[in-house]
């Protein structure tokens, strides 16, 4: 039995990969992402957090790109290239973990809202709606200000404000899955809530969840940058804090385009990559989108 399931799963992964490969945009995104993630992971082998320390910034202030500083320097003579590299760790970490947190909350509440009809489901749904209409950026700002500035609080602030759309999506999918006849059969055979939600609903919403989470990471990275630009950061260099620095220290008036453009372009590139991947995933995993694309 389990062997059969294993083979089936392996086959479906292979089929999925075959489909995904045909999406050029999705593949491009995936490659960009892989490069960004690998670079972030190997960074400690080459540099340490010292590159973001102002005391060790020895270059000229706001110097244009040169051999010594390929992407120029910031207002304290630190290399923009090295700061971008080290800062990618913060940006990506916050992006991934915030998306993960949002996904976990969204999935649990979404499945609960879809599975438990009646008053329990209604309450969960109303709570979701309530969070959905909260202006998420303002809420995140307030949360981060109250909790104080650290990586964990920024992750929490982003995570708890971005889950409602995931929950809505998952609930809709749960309703669709639970309408299928085999759920009824399962119920008739005596399956409990736990069995149905984890064995039947979760595997069926998982692909959609993957696509939605990928898109969620992109928006979490943007939110992190926005928060950092507005002054809420984790005391660590990230692409958002670099953008803030370029604004605070008048990079625009000084003509230091590298200090503004580079972090901005990095955000654009990574967010774009996540979006391309997410869209490709959606197309592959959602049969309805696939047929539409085929027409």
């Amino acid at each position, binding site marked *: 039995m389990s062997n059969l399931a294993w083979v089936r799963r392996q086959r479906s992964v292979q089929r999925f990969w075959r489909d995904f490969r045909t999406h050029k945009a999705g593949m491009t995104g995936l490659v960009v992402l892989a490069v960004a993630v690998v670079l972030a992971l190997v960074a400690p082998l080459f540099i340490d957090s010292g590159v973001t*320390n*102002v*005391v*060790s910034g020895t270059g000229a202030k706001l110097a244009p790109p040169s051999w010594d500083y390929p992407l120029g320097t910031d*207002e*304290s003579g630190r290399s923009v290239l090295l700061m971008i590299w080290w800062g990618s760790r913060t940006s990506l970490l916050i992006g991934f973990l915030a998306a993960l947190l949002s996904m976990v909350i969204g999935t649990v509440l979404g499945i609960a809202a879809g599975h438990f009809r009646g008053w329990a489901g209604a309450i969960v749904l109303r709570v979701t709606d309530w969070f959905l209409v909260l202006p998420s950026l*303002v809420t995140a*700002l*307030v949360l981060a*200000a*109250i909790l*104080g*500035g650290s990586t964990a609080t920024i992750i929490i602030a982003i995570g708890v404000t971005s889950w409602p759309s995931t929950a809505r999506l998952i609930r809709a999918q749960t309703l669709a899955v639970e309408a299928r006849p085999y759920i009824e059969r399962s119920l008739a055979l005596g399956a409990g809530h736990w069995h149905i939600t984890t064995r039947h609903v979760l595997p069926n919403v998982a692909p959609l969840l993957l696509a939605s989470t990928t898109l969620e990471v992109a928006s979490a990275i943007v939110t992190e940058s926005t928060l950092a630009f*507005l*002054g*809420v950061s984790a*005391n660590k260099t990230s692409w958002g804090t670099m953008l803030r*620095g370029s*604004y*605070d*220290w*008048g990079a625009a*008036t000084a003509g230091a385009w590298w200090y503004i453009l580079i972090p901005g372009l990095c955000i654009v590139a990574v967010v774009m990559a996540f979006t391309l991947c997410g869209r490709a995933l959606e197309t592959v995993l959602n049969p309805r989108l696939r047929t539409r694309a085929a027409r």
Partner: protein
Amino acid sequence: MLVWFLPMIKRWLGVLGALCLVIAIPGTASAAPQEATQSARKVVKVGVTQAVDSMNPFLAVRLVSGSLQRWMYSFLTVPDPKNLQPSPDLAESWTTSPDGLTWTFKIRTAKWSDGQPITADDAAWTFNKMMTDDAAKAGNGPAVENFTSVTANGQELTIKLKAPQASMLDIPVAIVPKHVWEKVTDIAKYEADQYPTVGSGPYVAVEHKKDQFVRLEANKDYWQGPAKIDELQVIFYDNPAAAVVGLKKGDIDLIGRLAPPDFESLKGDDNIVQWNTEGRRATYLQVNHGATTSDNKPIGDGHPALKDPRVRQALHYGIDKQKLVAETQNGLARPADGSIVPPLYKSFFWEASGASKIGYDAAKANQILDDAGYKKGADGIRTMPDGSRKLAFRFSIHTDAPSEEKLAEYLTGWFKELGIQLTARRLDSSKFTEETGTTALFDIAISGWSVNPDPEEVLGTHLCSRRPTASGQGGGTESFYCDPQYEDLYKQQQKELDRPKRADIIKKMQERLYADAPVIALYYPNDLEGYRKDRIASITPIPEDKGLLYGGSSYWPFYTVEAVTKDAAAESDGGPNPGLIAAIAAAVVVLALGGFVLARRRQGAADERE
């Protein structure tokens, strides 16, 4: 809870506003009062980034309101423009009794701007109002704390004191006309918004639109003769970037108190004079050296290591002030080798020299810490001699202050070399004031003070009596300091009426602060201003030798200011065009947003204190 994120919203609006201004430059002047029709009128427009909190001198606390008071009312005495020593203003002359407890001022024969004579009765009424009505103490209450009685006899004003007070010749109280003010029933609610105001200074306020502008006209009856210009306008901007744009395109003629980046952006404009002189401010670190309340009970959660003067001294050695000035102030400040009195006040300024001078020396700092038994752990961070706690300090700064963030980054870097971990903690200004001034929930905090020509006020902020009470009422301490030697010196200088001798005592007080390090002075920011030389022909600073234009404790610069006489033709502008209308619409949006923010801005932010 809402207040937590307002600074960030404010910042966001500021960004938006600045962007809009760049796009819609012609629209920014819509806040300015109507242009005078006769071109012969000499008008000088001053831009400020702080709104008037009140036109009522009994209530106002902000610097801009203080400046307006100096222009609208005479004080008993005023700092002399040459050497900043007290000199006659409304009081022509004065005498002191031998015990220093009775002061007699002779009020000069002059007229209020409504033609009524000025008598000692007006001055006596002003002081008595402050002594008897708590509401009238909001602005300058401490100034009359030491008064027993104030009486008037013709032009003679007699003030009796509880204890001798050397700063009697620097009383920052505007003398108001009794015949106008005695009709006011509730001083706390009175906005003094009847124009023209009745005053005795070089200018009379004739119009005030809240958060937009104040228009003043020269007082023709001023006892020194009318000012050289006809009209002085004070125009408010919500953010410095907008004010700088306003100066560049000629909406305003002068702006003071600029931050280094704004000041530098004025470079290259041939019509603008960049004014860069010594300032009246000192920026220092406040160290929680074991904060106590006024009944000597410990308060707050300061790190125990900071109680050790050796640790504080090591921190002092670990700071490269030269580099701080270069990096956080764009070099536009003077590194501090002294204490809380800036070098602008030459007679009271003290500076360490020789062996007692503490310069940047990380090796020495490490040596001090090693000798004191703070051993480095495996992670390079030192621990307390008993091993109980790591030397990890918090550093409290304000949200939304780029130069403080940069300062924090540098201190973090330098202290790391000493084996001390520093973590920046950003607080909005009301929480910051509470934690560093009352509840003592800090280790190290950034602070600063704009010092008056008589430094008694700033010296008083380090007295035992200024510590918070047991019930948690703030007393205005800047350090929670309580040192018998310092207390003693403070009392001595209070009694010493001989100026040079008093200056010596005040220098000793600064020396004590420097050595014991409850506060560590970092630098003295320069006074950065800009004015248009195509509008202002001449202006005399206070002090006359490289002093301040705006923000000094005197009417002198704006009494002596001379405008460029311009041709009527040069003034005329083209008619409105569609672009201008669109720009004005954009400006209205910006102003509405600005108004929203201003309406919510609280008083007493740290750098607004005088």
